[in-house]
């Protein structure tokens, strides 16, 4: 009985909003978008790639 009570109190499933790692979710959305944009628009893409790389290099 006590065990069931514990499950009721602590085993409650957290909402999807709380379970999602938003930082990873954002990265997994943006990275393919970035890739597609860079490939489909090579001229502007090269600039975007260069800027992103420079920022990455400067980040300690």
């Amino acid at each position: 009985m006590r065990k069931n009570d514990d499950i009721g109190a602590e085993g409650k499933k957290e909402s999807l909003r709380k379970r999602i790692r938003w930082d990873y979710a954002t990265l997994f959305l943006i990275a393919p978008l970035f890739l597609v944009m860079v490939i489909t628009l090579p001229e502007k893409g090269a600039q975007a790639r260069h800027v992103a790389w420079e920022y990455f290099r400067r980040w300690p």
Partner: protein
Amino acid sequence: MLLLLSVVKDQRKTAAALRVAYKGFVRFLPSVLAIILVVGLIVGFVPPKVIAQAIGKNSGAQGVAIASFLGAVLFIPVIIAFPLARSLLDMGAGYMATAAFITTLTMVGFVFLPLEIKELGKKFAIARNALSFVAAVAIAVVVGVIVG
């Protein structure tokens, strides 16, 4: 050099410090990478004309409002925010709007409002954020007047 000194002095504490640093690095890595890609997309694909129109020198109150809103809503580490602000300035953004963006970014945090409310109370969190927002806009206006 300092790390070596620390290892010589106390290996256990140094290991603990490195663990903390590594955890912090890993925790921030996905957000920082995402922001870097967004910055790349903005600089590469958004024409400078659009930036100048939205938050340029002549955008006035509208530019400050847009920049303040973005700064308040976004969560960007300052280490990325400053170079981003530089890029925006190079693309034609105004000093007033750029100051509004940076100041709201550092002083106002809508993303963390629920956490702030939970830890410090509703009244405190809302008053602090609202007053910070007003102060940030005022600072931006003064910076705009001084710098141009």
